[in-house]
């Protein structure tokens, strides 16, 4: 469980996070949603400590990272896996070497054990056929999957994904989303996903935090998201015609249900 308490972060007088407090739960896919520029990435980078917040607390199962020294922070970070928006694979290494890298760096395993573990993770994301290719030689979706494999190779307790679906077709997005959710449940990870894709929200939104202009405007699950009465959230969700139609249908069935109940 990760708790964020009254986090405030500003850049040169521009306050991007305005007193955000929330809880990300263990074993669930926690989503951060919001418009472009609302502060999702800043929130995520603050939680992992790439940005230091101006005030507030961030607790990883009770451990406060805002007061940690670099050494302790580095130790905690070995429990964290992160998937970056652009995959961030090391382009001087092959796919297999990329996934093996955290093992090289932080374990005393033998070479065979490391290769076995890396291959296992790559198999988990269905990339067994691409071991020796370099990141430049594989597609965007494959890069994302390789990055997921690298993020989970050390059995992290916390997994962060910054827009895992950006630039992918709807079907591949769905596969990535399901992969993230499966891994989360399988290994009981505290997963935080940054997205503005409503399909992801409806697919894997077990705990959704909606950020609007640097403030937490709403928090709940995907089943509650259609009638929240929260205006900026409604604006966000029903921006597209598709979701406007869905809302109409949703309302239609709700009215029907309540009228049958009354009868």
């Amino acid at each position, binding site marked *: 469980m990760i708790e964020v308490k009254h986090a405030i972060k500003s850049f040169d007088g521009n306050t991007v996070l305005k007193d955000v407090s929330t809880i990300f739960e263990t074993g669930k896919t926690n989503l951060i949603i919001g418009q472009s520029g609302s502060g999702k990435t800043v929130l995520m980078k603050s939680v992992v400590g790439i940005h230091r917040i101006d005030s507030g607390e961030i607790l990883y199962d009770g451990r406060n990272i805002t007061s940690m020294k670099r050494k302790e922070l580095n130790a905690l970070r070995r429990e964290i896996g992160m998937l970056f928006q652009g995959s*961030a694979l090391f*382009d001087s290494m092959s796919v297999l070497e990329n996934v093996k890298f955290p093992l090289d760096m932080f374990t005393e395993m033998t070479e065979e054990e490391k290769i076995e573990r890396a291959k296992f993770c790559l198999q988990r994301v269905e990339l067994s056929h691409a071991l020796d290719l370099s990141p430049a030689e594989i597609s965007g979706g494959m890069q994302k999957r390789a990055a997921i494999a690298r993020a989970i190779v050390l059995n992290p307790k916390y997994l962060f994904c910054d827009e895992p679906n950006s630039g992918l077709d709807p079907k591949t997005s769905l596969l990535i989303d399901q992969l993230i959710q499966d891994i989360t449940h399988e290994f009981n990870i505290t997963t935080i996903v940054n997205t503005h894709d409503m399909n992801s929200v409806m697919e894997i939104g077990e705990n959704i935090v909606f950020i609007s202009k640097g403030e937490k405007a709403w928090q709940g699950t995907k089943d509650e998201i259609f009638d929240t009465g929260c205006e900026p959230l409604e604006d966000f969700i029903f921006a597209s015609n598709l979701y406007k139609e869905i809302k109409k249908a949703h309302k239609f069935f709700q009215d029907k249900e309540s009228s049958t109940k009354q009868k």
Partner: protein
Amino acid sequence: MFAIKEIEKVGAYTQLMYRVFAKPDKWSMFFRQYKEELKKQGIDSLAIVVIISIFIGAVITIQMIKNMENPLLPSTLIGLATRDILLLEFSSAILCLILAGKVGSNIASEIGTMRITEQIDALDIMGVNSSNFLILPKIIAFVTIMPFLVLTSMFVGIIGGYGVAIFTDMITVKSYEAGIQFAFTPYYITYSIIKSVIFAYIITSVSSFYGYTVKGGALEVGKASTDAVVNSSVLILLFDIMLTKLLL
């Protein structure tokens, strides 16, 4: 404003170096990187060092012959002048200026690209000291390979002069040989190596700094790589004067 910016840069550079010169997270990984850098910066620079040195050695010899046509000047001075120019200045300072262009731009663009594609953030998130992991092997590799490059350049440059003696009738092999052995000061070699090691540190650390601190996109990476070459060249020239005053 300009002055404050420059002072801030020096501060940021110092802070970065403080993190670079830490104990590596894992020695086996450090040596792996180190070996790769030795190859990339050292072995791969050998060809350009050899080509440039051999031609410059030949050209210096020809120019010295032209300048010393006066029969009162002994022809041994030609070999001597060629040797001393190579030993004192060309094979250290000028060579490093050339390598600043090759190695410096390579380092700055490599690290800069890693920065803008979040590869450095990825290292940090894993709990790796990214500056130490990326920069230290580059510095140590170039500093340790540098004396060999300098010695190679000196040797090959003198061979270049030999070529002139052998293939033209401008100077006899005998007087060239006598010249390059005349009034030889071994300390010049030490002096050159000390200088070049410091220049090697300047090139790698300054270029790494510009790469590591890139913000933005591909355009800024290009700019960082130019800045890296220009600034390390200027620093090399400054230190060349200071070290010469100090050491000679």
